[in-house]
Structures are given as structure tokens and as C-alpha cells.
């Protein structure tokens, strides 16, 4: 067979009309067929929905009304039993639905036992009170189809029980309990049965009646919530499980399941019926669809006839229509073929004035235009060639220029395409990363630089994604030697046509050095701040010192000036004179020590070191002499000395060490109201150790780290007002250390303070220095 596109226009045209007609015929047939089919199905469906509604209403309403009346009768009958006080049946809301006393119906039960039974779901019995009378009550849960739907309570009089002697009460109680249980249980059983029987019988009758009303109904079945048929017009089906897909579909939650079964000529609809939200069961209806199929066959026949008629008419009409159109077209086709071969001078003959004639005219005009265009193009293509050549040269120049610019940029620069592949890499970038351009071009930039930041912080990625430049991003990359380099990078997208990014360009410079410098600067700055803080602290201490020193100097001077004036101006007895002179003498010594300390400290301040003049000295003698002196200045302290035998002479500056001893003893007396001051001297590890211990006020823990600082006098306000410059310990430490020794303080507030220092016997490493001098 020839393919359709090769058929002549005539045939195509004819075929087109024929197929159009067939299409129209079939469409009308289909539409009418569909309309008819749908309306038939719709009829059946609406019938089924009406049926469902009727059934649901009958089932639920009958049950509710019948329940109460018949239950009440049952309850009243049972109440006649001997010893019975009454019977109550309640629903799950504790509302009475049947009771011995009719007036209770509809009220909330006053029983204390029923709420417990409803909550726990099992039998409970016990004493209770009802209408002001003491009773024994037993309640049993009421379940229908396994679901808790209320409770039955049987209540007994207990007059007999109360009259019985205590010994028998237990027996009677037990009997009563059994009776009550049987009563409640059997009542519950009867109610359950009643319910089940009534439900099924009534429904069955209804279903059969409904099925008889229409001869088209083949089956009506009603199932319970588990799919068990509880009523059906086909009686064999009752009590079987309706296990078909429509029922299952409704049970699993859909509101309607319908299907036409052509093989059995049946239309099936399944629908749920509900009480409130709860699915109570399924109504299943199947219709005979004989009528439906009969009607369909009729419509089909009519449609077929209509189609055949229109086809025949269409073929005839098409042939007639195409005849005058085809022959001029054929001729035109011939001329066109010649034209295509290049014979642009060929023209079509114009035979008629209809559309075909016009077509021929237009064709001739087109042939003329074609000829003109060809001449023009030939002329133009010659100039074009020349222009292309010029442009190519210009482009090459421009490219060289750009390359030169890229090369001359001092910062690293690379470009990438949309696949993150590097497309260019300038010399500075080579220098910075250690890679050669030919090594990296064509590779992905993330793989080359291995930077973590490539994932989240990469400026080139950001700029391509946002379409905007991304400037001055600090990040780090790895160079060829796998060394981390801190860089500052800026990137911009490269825009192609339609303003879409075709890649990106990134410029970067190494900022490792700058970063290091900044870090250094910050460190220096911090150190300067620290230093400034120290200086401020020192300045504060100095001001305080000046005020203290002035006070310290004035106090002994007061004694000196005062007593000497008295001695000079008053006539005093010999004893007083001597006493005053002793005062003057002692204060002079104190003043001398003070001045010594001040001079020492100013010397250290000025020179930064301490000069000592050593001699071989008996240390014990110096200590003894000092203790002897201080012993006279106090009568509240007791001095104890513990000196080891054979303490050798030591290589020390006697003046300075004496100053240390004086300072320590002065402190021990000053900071204790009384008690023992113990001085020990012993030899250990090539050193002489001296300790001076008091039983005074001690030093708080927080002050201990600072006690050797110049001018530091502790934080206790009562100490600050005592005499002292805060120099003694500081100078002592300098002296001991200048001798190559160490000094330490141990103290407990309220217990006392112990100061220990040691001095190397041979003078330590300082000995050589001294000899050299």
C-alpha cells in the first residue's frame, strides 16, 4: 500500500470529508449512547439511595422505641420477686432507661455502684442507700454484641440481714451476693437476647417487603458491622458472611460502591447505614439489568444505520466537489517542480478566476521575487565574506588584549563554566596556588582548592546562584603542596545571552601575612592594655604609700619632738627623764629602720637590683640580738627560741639579714595581741632555715598572693589603720632572694602566721660574683 502522504490531493480531500462524516455519525451515536447509559444507571443508583435511607431510618428508629417499652415491661415483671427492692437499667451515660419506679426513667441514677461498673466493666456488689433506705445492690455490665452499652442493677432489701445475729450475717451476705449476681446476670442476658431477636426479625420482614415492591430488584441484603448478613430476601444468605468487594469497600469507609456486571446482567450498589458516626452495617442491593441491556441494543442498531448512510452520502459529495479543483493544481505542481530545479523563468498559466486562478497569479509573483532575491544574495554574499574576514581579525586582537590584561593583574584570577570547570587561570593564580594553568583547566574548582568553604561560603558559587557580584569573602584554600592559605576572594557571574550566567570569575589574593600581622597587633594591643592597667595599679599604690609613709614618719617624730621638748622645758625627776630618753631612743631606732626600708626600696626602684656586702657571720648572734631588743618593747608576748646545735657561720650581709629579722619580728608583735613568738633556726639541704611564728590574727587567704607586693597592706580595714608601710615583707623578700634563698608565708586567720626563709650556707651562686668583685 502507498503511504498516505503520497496520495493525490484529490484522494486526500475525499478521504478527509469521508472521515469527517464518519466521525460526526459516530460521535452522535456515542453521545446518545452515553447519555442513555448514564441516565439508566442514575435511575438505579437513586433508587438504591432511597432504599438505604428508608432502611436506615426504620432500623434505627424501631430499635430505639421498641427498646424502652419492652425493657420497662421486663423490669417491672422482675421487680415482683420476693425481697427485691428494685431493678434499674442504665445506659453508658448513667441515665436510667428502665426502672421499677417509672419516675426514675430518664434521670441520672443515684446508685454508687453503677458508675464503678461502667468504668471497670465487671460485676460489683455492695451496700448502698436508696431513697433513704439501706440496701444491698449488685450491678452487672450490659454488653450487646460485645460492646458495653449500659448496666443492670438489682437492689435487695436488707431488713432480714440487719435483724440477724452477727455470726450469721456473713452467710446471708454471701447468699445475697449470689442471688444478686444471678439476677443481674440473667437480666442482662434476657435484654441481650431480646435485642438480638427483635433486630433480626423486624429487619427481615422489612427487607422482604421492599424487595417485593420492584420486579427489577434481584437481592436486598443487610449486614451487621462485621459483614454478617442479618436480613436478606434470599433467605439462604442470612447468617453467612457477605464477602464481596462492594461490601468490603463500604466497610472500610467509602460511602458508596457501585458496579455494573455485564456478564451477569446485574447492577450492584452497596451503601453503609450509620448511627451517628458509627457504622452499623451495610445495605447491599443488586438490580436486574435486562431492560438496560435491551435498550442499549436498540440504540446501537439505530446508530449503525445512521453512520452507514452518512458515509455513502459523504463519498459521493466528495468526488463531485474535488473534480474542478484537482486538474489546475496538478499543472501548478508541474511548474513548481521545474522552478525548484532552478528554472526560475518558468511561469504558471492562469486558466480561471477562482481561488486556483489566484493561486497561479500569486505563484508567478513569487517566482519573480525569487529570481530577484537570488540575484541580490549573490551580490551580498561577496561583500559579506570580506566583512567576516575583517571582524575575525578584530576579534583576535581583542582576545590578545584581554589575555594581556588577565596576565598583568596582580591578584589571582580564574574563570569557570556552569559545570564548575576552570576555563582560565592567570599567572598570579599560578604563583599563589602552585598549580600551572594547564594542570587545572577543565577540572572542577572545588576539587583543586579542596576548601571546606567551597561547600557553603564559596563566593563564585554564591555569585552564580544570585546573579550578582559577591565581594571580599575571607576563606581558605589548599595550594598544590596541600598547605592552607588564607585568601580574600571576590567573584562575579559571567552573563551570557538572555542574561543567564554561563559561568563565573573569581579574583583572590593571599591574606595569610595580613592575618598574621593583625593577630600580632591584637596581641600587642592587649599587652599594652595590660601594662597600662599595671601602671595604673602601681600609681594608686604609690599615692597610698606616700600618705602612709608621711604618717609613719610623723608618728616617731611626734615622740621625738614632744619628749625632747618636755625634757628641755620642764624640770623632771631623774626617773622620768630616763624613761623619756628611752622613748626617744627606741623611736629613733624605729625611725632608722623605717628610713632604711624606704631607702632600700627607692634603691631597688632606681636600680632594679640590690647590693649586698657579704661576710662570714654567726647568724644566731644577729637573731639573738634582735630578739633581745624586741623583748623590751612588749610585755604581752613570750619569746621562744629553738636553735639547732652547730649552726655554721654564713656568707651573708649582716646588716641586711638583720633588717629581715627585725621586719619579721616587728610584724609578729604588731599583728598579734600577745602569746608566743617562736623563732627556729636549723640546717637542711645545704641551707640555714629561719622561721618566725606568731599566734596572731593571721592573714586571709585572698591576701596571701599579694603580701610580698610593695605597699600591700592587706584588705582588712582594721589593719590598714595600723602603723606600717607595707614594705617590710617586700624588702625582706628582695634581701633573701639576693642571698640566693627563698622566703615563704603560711598563715591561718585567727591562728597565726609563720614566715620561713632560707639562705645557702656557701652563699649559693652569688658567691662567685662576690669574689670577682
Amino acid at each position: 500500500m502507498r503511504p498516505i502522504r503520497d496520495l493525490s490531493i484529490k484522494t486526500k480531500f475525499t478521504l478527509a470529508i469521508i472521515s469527517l462524516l464518519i466521525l460526526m455519525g459516530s460521535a452522535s451515536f456515542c453521545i446518545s449512547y452515553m447519555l442513555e447509559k448514564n441516565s439508566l444507571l442514575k435511575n438505579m443508583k437513586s433508587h438504591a439511595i432511597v432504599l438505604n435511607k428508608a432502611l436506615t431510618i426504620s432500623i434505627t428508629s424501631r430499635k430505639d422505641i421498641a427498646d424502652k417499652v419492652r425493657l420497662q415491661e421486663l423490669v417491672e415483671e422482675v421487680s415482683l420477686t420476693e425481697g427485691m427492692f428494685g431493678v434499674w437499667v442504665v445506659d453508658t451515660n448513667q441515665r436510667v432507661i428502665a426502672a421499677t419506679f417509672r419516675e426514675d426513667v430518664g434521670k441520672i441514677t443515684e446508685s454508687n455502684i453503677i458508675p464503678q461498673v461502667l468504668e471497670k466493666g465487671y460485676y460489683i456488689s455492695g451496700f448502698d442507700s436508696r431513697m433513704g433506705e439501706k440496701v444491698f445492690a449488685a450491678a452487672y455490665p450490659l454488653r450487646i454484641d460485645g460492646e458495653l452499652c449500659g448496666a443492670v442493677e438489682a437492689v435487695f432489701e436488707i431488713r432480714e440481714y440487719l435483724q440477724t445475729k452477727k455470726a450469721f450475717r456473713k452467710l446471708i451476705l454471701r447468699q445475697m451476693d449470689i442471688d444478686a449476681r444471678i439476677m443481674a446476670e440473667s437480666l442482662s442476658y434476657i435484654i441481650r437476647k431480646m435485642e438480638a431477636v427483635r433486630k433480626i426479625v423486624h429487619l427481615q420482614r422489612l427487607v422482604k417487603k421492599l424487595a417485593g415492591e420492584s420486579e427489577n430488584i434481584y437481592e436486598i441484603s443487610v449486614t451487621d458491622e462485621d459483614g454478617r448478613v442479618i436480613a436478606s430476601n434470599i433467605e439462604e444468605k442470612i447468617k453467612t458472611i457477605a464477602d464481596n468487594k462492594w461490601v468490603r469497600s463500604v466497610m472500610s469507609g467509602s460511602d458508596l460502591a457501585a458496579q455494573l456486571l455485564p456478564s451477569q446482567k446485574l447492577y450492584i450498589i452497596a451503601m453503609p447505614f450509620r448511627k451517628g458516626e458509627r457504622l452499623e452495617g451495610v445495605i447491599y442491593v443488586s438490580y436486574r439489568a435486562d431492560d438496560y441491556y435491551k435498550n442499549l441494543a436498540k440504540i446501537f442498531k439505530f446508530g449503525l444505520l445512521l453512520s452507514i448512510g452518512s458515509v455513502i452520502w459523504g463519498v459521493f459529495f466528495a468526488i463531485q466537489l474535488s473534480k474542478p479543483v484537482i486538474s489546475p493544481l496538478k499543472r501548478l505542481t508541474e511548474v513548481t517542480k521545474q522552478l525548484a530545479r532552478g528554472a526560475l523563468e518558468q511561469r504558471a498559466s492562469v486558466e480561471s478566476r477562482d481561488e486556483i486562478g489566484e493561486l497561479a497569479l500569486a505563484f508567478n509573483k513569487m517566482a519573480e521575487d525569487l529570481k530577484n532575491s537570488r540575484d541580490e544574495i549573490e551580490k551580498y554574499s561577496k561583500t559579506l565574506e570580506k566583512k567576516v574576514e575583517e571582524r575575525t581579525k578584530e576579534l583576535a586582537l581583542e582576545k590578545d588584549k584581554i589575555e594581556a590584561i588577565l596576565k598583568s593583574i596582580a591578584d589571582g584570577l580564574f574563570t569557570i563554566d556552569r559545570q564548575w570547570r576552570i576555563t582560565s587561570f592567570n599567572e598570579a593564580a599560578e604563583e599563589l596556588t602552585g598549580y600551572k594553568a594547564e594542570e587545572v583547566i577543565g577540572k572542577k574548582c572545588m576539587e583543586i582548592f579542596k576548601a571546606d568553604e567551597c561547600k557553603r561560603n564559596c563566593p563564585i558559587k554564591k555569585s552564580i546562584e544570585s546573579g550578582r557580584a559577591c565581594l571580599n569573602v575571607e576563606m581558605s584554600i589548599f595550594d598544590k603542596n596541600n598547605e592552607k592559605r588564607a585568601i580574600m576572594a571576590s567573584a562575579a557571574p559571567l552573563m551570557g545571552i538572555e542574561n543567564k550566567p554561563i559561568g563565573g570569575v573569581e579574583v583572590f589574593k593571599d591574606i595569610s601575612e595580613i592575618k598574621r600581622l593583625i593577630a600580632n597587633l591584637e596581641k600587642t594591643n592587649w599587652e599594652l592594655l595590660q601594662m597600662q592597667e599595671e601602671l595604673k595599679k602601681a600609681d594608686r599604690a604609690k599615692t597610698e604609700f606616700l600618705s602612709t609613709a608621711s604618717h609613719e614618719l610623723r608618728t616617731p617624730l611626734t615622740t621625738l619632738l614632744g619628749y625632747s621638748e618636755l625634757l628641755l622645758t620642764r624640770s623632771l625627776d631623774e626617773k622620768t627623764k630616763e624613761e623619756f630618753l628611752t622613748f626617744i631612743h627606741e623611736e629613733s631606732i624605729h625611725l632608722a629602720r623605717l628610713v632604711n626600708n624606704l631607702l632600700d626600696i627607692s634603691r631597688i626602684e632606681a636600680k632594679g637590683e640590690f647590693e649586698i656586702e657579704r661576710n662570714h657571720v654567726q647568724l644566731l648572734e644577729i637573731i639573738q640580738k634582735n630578739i633581745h631588743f624586741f623583748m623590751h618593747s612588749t610585755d604581752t608576748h613570750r619569746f621562744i627560741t629553738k636553735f639547732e646545735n652547730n649552726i655554721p657561720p654564713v656568707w651573708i650581709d649582716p646588716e641586711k639579714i638583720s633588717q629581715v629579722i627585725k621586719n619579721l619580728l616587728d610584724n609578729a608583735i604588731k599583728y598579734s595581741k600577745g602569746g608566743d613568738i617562736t623563732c627556729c633556726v636549723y640546717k637542711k639541704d645545704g641551707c640555714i632555715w629561719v622561721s618566725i611564728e606568731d599566734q596572731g590574727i593571721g592573714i586571709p587567704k585572698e591576701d596571701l598572693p599579694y603580701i610580698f607586693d610593695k605597699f600591700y597592706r592587706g584588705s582588712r580595714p582594721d589593719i590598714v589603720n595600723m602603723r606600717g608601710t607595707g614594705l617590710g615583707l617586700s624588702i625582706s623578700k628582695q634581701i633573701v632572694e639576693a642571698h640566693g634563698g627563698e622566703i615563704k608565708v603560711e598563715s591561718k586567720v585567727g591562728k597565726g602566721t609563720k614566715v620561713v626563709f632560707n639562705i645557702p650556707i656557701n652563699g649559693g651562686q652569688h658567691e662567685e660574683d662576690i669574689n670577682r668583685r
Partner: protein
Amino acid sequence: MKKILIVDDEERVRRLIETTLDIGDFQIFQAKDGEEALKIAQEEKPALILLDIMMPGMDGFEVCKWLKNNSETKSSYIIMLTAKGQKQDIEKGYTVGADDYFVKPFSPMELLNKVEQVLGGSD
């Protein structure tokens, strides 16, 4: 006989002042710290108090302030007698209510003259 209270933590200084004032017709009391000073001042109501500043516990400024704020003792004439001789110390002394200021070291004769001048007028 006029009553004078000497307050100083240094025993030698108290002794010095006492000896200085011996030749006048005064009854002398001594206190070694602030608390003792307040007690004696309330009991004896001295006409003059010679008050040191730098003492352990309550300092002289506090003692002076307390005395001048107490109706029983505010009539006592208070001379601050102290080694704290800087300008701001003297100013502080007057602020807390001191009547006069004497800087250590001092001449006993001058102190005696001062005391006689202060107490002589009302005698």
C-alpha cells in the same frame, strides 16, 4: 576642774599629751581606741577631746561624726590631733564636725597654749 579626753592608739603619744597638760588644772581621761572614746565621752562629757585619726577599728573621723551627732556629746570641743596632715584630710576633719586641727609632730608648748585658750574663756 575641766575634763579632757585624749584618744590615741599609741600609748607613748597619750603619755606625752598627758605630761604636756599635767601643769594645767585639768582632769585627764585616756582612750586607746574609738569605742572606748565614745564610752568615756558619754559618761564624763569632757569639755575637750584630743582625737587621733588613724586607729584600728573605728577611725577618728567616724568617732568625731558620732560625737557631734549625739546630743549628750556634741558640746565637747574636738581637736583632731593627727599625723594625717594633707589638705584633704584637714578638710574632711572639719566636714565631720571637728572644731580644730593639730598636725603631728607637734610642740607640747603650742598644744598646751591651744588647750588653755580653748578652755580658758568659759572658765
